[in-house]
């Protein structure tokens, strides 16, 4: 049975062991219990069918989540999994990843979990560049607690806790991640399996923290929140590294960078193709990525999707491992020696 996780084969160059699995191998025996029509089903399916590509044995993969609808995700993956408490998944994943660099650690979170109750942990895991992959499923609503506005809901959202409209200015998750010094920041859409899979592939291969915002439809409490981008594909500004940033049914629209540092939407015919902004995922400063993230604070018009930023920076887990190696190179710890260190004195039988 070639699907058995213990059955390791090697890839083309005969060096790296590869495990050949299928999407089915990543389905657990648990009944999936999201609402019918929930966008989480599509994301789960995309992740399960993408996982075999990693060539990593199932026992080396761990999904960690907090609280929320999407936080049920680990139960449905035939990997190791930890369904924790609200907002804390990045902290738990940090302890796991740094103490077990041999694992592939994934965090599945939502807009409330990651940006409200767990906001502090999110920004710190990003700045440290811990080797975890974060999938932030954004519904712009609290689903599990039945429909309160979330930190990504547009200003004025009317709901159970805000009958006269919400007063909170919403977060833009991509801007937050960029501001928190993330080294990999991307955005995709639940139902666009091809795009989502490509983004997941890039995220998985990124050394350090990868942050992926996924627009997800909550058909019960916030149906159609992303339709302006999901359904009207002419509003999707698909970012491609090294290419001019353009969009529209015929690519007739584009993005230029103004002298004040902001992005502006233009007609390509008016400004000419050579005036368009060329996307650079690897720009160290992140200012281009940030400017792109500001094009659409809430996705009700033309909105960039794809990879905003992909740069290299030392990975926290590796740095920690290196310090341990350095210390051990000077002599592995020996307990009796440690206890006897410092000023000691002898008392002999008088």
């Amino acid at each position: 049975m070639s699907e058995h996780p213990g059955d390791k084969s090697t890839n083309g160059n005969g060096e790296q062991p590869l495990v050949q699995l299928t999407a089915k191998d990543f389905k657990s025996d648990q009944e999936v219990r999201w609402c019918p029509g929930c966008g989480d089903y599509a994301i789960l399916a995309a992740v399960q069918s993408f996982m075999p590509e990693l060539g990593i044995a199932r026992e080396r993969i761990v999904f960690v989540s907090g609280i929320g609808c999407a936080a049920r995700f680990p139960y449905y993956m035939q990997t190791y999994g930890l369904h924790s408490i609200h907002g804390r998944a990045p902290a738990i994943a940090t302890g796991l990843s740094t103490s077990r660099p041999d694992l592939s650690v994934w965090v599945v979170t939502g807009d409330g979990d990651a940006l409200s109750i767990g906001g502090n942990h999110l920004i710190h895991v990003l700045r440290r560049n811990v080797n975890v992959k974060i999938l932030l499923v954004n519904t712009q609503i609290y689903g599990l607690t039945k429909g309160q506005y979330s930190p990504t809901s547009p200003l004025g959202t009317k709901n159970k806790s805000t009958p006269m409209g919400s007063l909170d200015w919403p977060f833009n998750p991509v801007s937050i991640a960029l501001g928190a010094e993330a080294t990999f920041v991307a955005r995709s859409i639940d139902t666009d399996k091809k795009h989502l899979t490509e983004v997941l592939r890039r995220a998985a291969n990124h050394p350090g923290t990868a942050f992926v915002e996924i627009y997800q439809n909550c058909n019960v409490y916030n149906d159609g929140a992303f339709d302006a981008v999901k359904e009207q594909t002419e509003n999707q500004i698909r970012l491609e590294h090294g290419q001019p940033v353009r969009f529209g049914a015929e690519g007739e629209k584009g993005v230029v960078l103004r002298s004040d540092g902001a992005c502006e939407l233009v007609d390509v015919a008016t400004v000419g193709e050579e005036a368009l902004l060329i996307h650079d995922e690897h720009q160290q400063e992140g200012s281009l990525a940030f400017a792109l993230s500001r094009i659409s604070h809430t996705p009700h018009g033309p909105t960039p999707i794809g990879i905003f930023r992909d740069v290299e920076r030392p990975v926290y887990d590796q740095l920690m491992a290196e310090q341990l190696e350095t210390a051990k190179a000077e002599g592995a710890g020996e307990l009796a020696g440690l206890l006897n260190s410092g000023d000691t004195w002898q008392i002999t039988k008088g």
Partner: protein
Amino acid sequence: MAKPVEQLERVIIRFAGDSGDGMQLTGGRFTSETALMGNDLSTLPDFPAEIRAPAGSLPGVSGFQIHFSDHDILTPGDAPNVLVAMNPAALRTNLNDLPPGGTLIVNTDAFTDRNLQKAGYTSNPLDDGTVDDYLVQRVPLTSLTQEALKGVGITSREAERSKNMFALGLMSWLYTRPTEGTLAYIAKKFAKRPEIAEANARAFRAGYAFGETSEGFATQYEVAPAEMPPGTYRNITGNQALGLGLVAASVQSKLPLFLSAYPITPASDVLHDLARHKSFGVRTFQAEDEIAAVGAALGASFGGSLGVCTSSGPGIALKQETIGLAVALELPLLILDIQRAGPSTGMPTKPEQADLLMVMFGRNAESPVPVIAASTPGGCFDAAIEATRIALKYRTPVFLLSDAYLANGSEPWLLPDVESLPDISVEFATQPPVEGAFMPYLRDPDTLARQWAIPGTPGLEHRIGGLEKEDVTGNVSYDPDNHDHMVRLRARKVAGIAADIPELAVDDPDGDAELLVLGWGGTYGPIQSAARRIRREGKKVAHAHLTHLNPFPRNTAAVLAHYPKVLIPEMNLGQLLKLVRAEFLVDAHGYNRVRGLPFRSDELAEAMKAML
């Protein structure tokens, strides 16, 4: 001309000065010299939370008390015999503790109008009769130091800052302490600034010589070495012992240590110590907040490390939700609570025992967690290993309680024989089930511990979480009977640890005392000391001290039933008292003080006598 030497059985010295005067360093060096002399000793640093309160002010006073003797002692002493006051504020805040007839050594240079005013004195206490009841040694420490340092090539201000070394030299002469250790220490500490090293060494020697030659100091004192069990000793604080105990627990469990913390007084030193032990494979993680610290430790535990987090009361309050998760996950996790006075920020550098009920009950719902409390600074080492043993064997979070007194106080510590430390290793599940899925909540019938499979183990992939679990399978379950079963099972698992811990030992020399004094944690020294004191007066009292607070030792009920009267002294308003009354229906009485200071033996002796 040698001065006469008088033998003393014991001495209590308190160094008191401004936060910037280096009193902790002075006390620490005097302690090291005393330890090397072979005296038994106990210390009590008492310092403000402010790093540098305004110079010369009352809140800025920092103190260090050391009690040393030629016999076994248990506490830093109730009242000093000797008070070294470096300025008027130090005199004012400490003089009340010095009994009449005590020795007072003052730095007369610091008694300026301005300093007197800052201390709230309207006249100079050295001249107005305030100190008439004491044996006063007036020493112009500052000017003598500056005089001694002429030609060293440092500023007058830098010279003035060496006055603590002059004082240390003087005290070292007065109590015939060895000087080599301090001179070596100075050379090492200031290796990069040779002129400062020279200044401190010279000030130290000058202070020593001043004692030898000054007519004011007519007698030198000697305290003979104490009789202690043979072996190798070092002086140790509670926090140092916790650090060493955690490394030992990691070695003895064969699990890598992952220690995470958010800086908080008085726990941070444990993080500092362990950050230096990376050669043992110790990972330390300074988290973004208290919640992340415990979360990371739990994540590391899930991965098969020994997950530990250190904090104090306010931090523990923030960690409780995650500790509840660890209860549900049934994973090992060690949480160190170095207690301090509260509520809220309270008095960060001062000890209290008021977190007991929080660690017992401060989580949502039925959430039992074993609790262990260290009794002495050196005992923190054993407590760390014992807490780890229970956490690993029973797959449970465990609280280890210490306090600011144990954390910073020190005593000679007989180094344990590494070979004699217990093997506390655990076995992970490694065998895939013959058929069906892995059952993460399948239990050992004796300990009720569930099987522990760590990521990386093929065939044992499983999911756990904070939702209620079906026993055995670990699947999410809302079944009413399963929940009732699981709540009772988790309680039974923790209660069952009673069979696996030592019985409560009772110190009752004649076996016929009427009064049992039951204590826990850092009050061991003062309670035992008080008990010995009143026994010398012919009174009978038994002392039992709890290390395990949840579950209680299996003979606790029998011990309590044996004594007609029970007194429970605590540095809180009666928390163990509530537990004992509730659990054992015993009409125990409390003795409760929350002054941010350890108990004095004399007040406890009075409380015991009042019960007899």
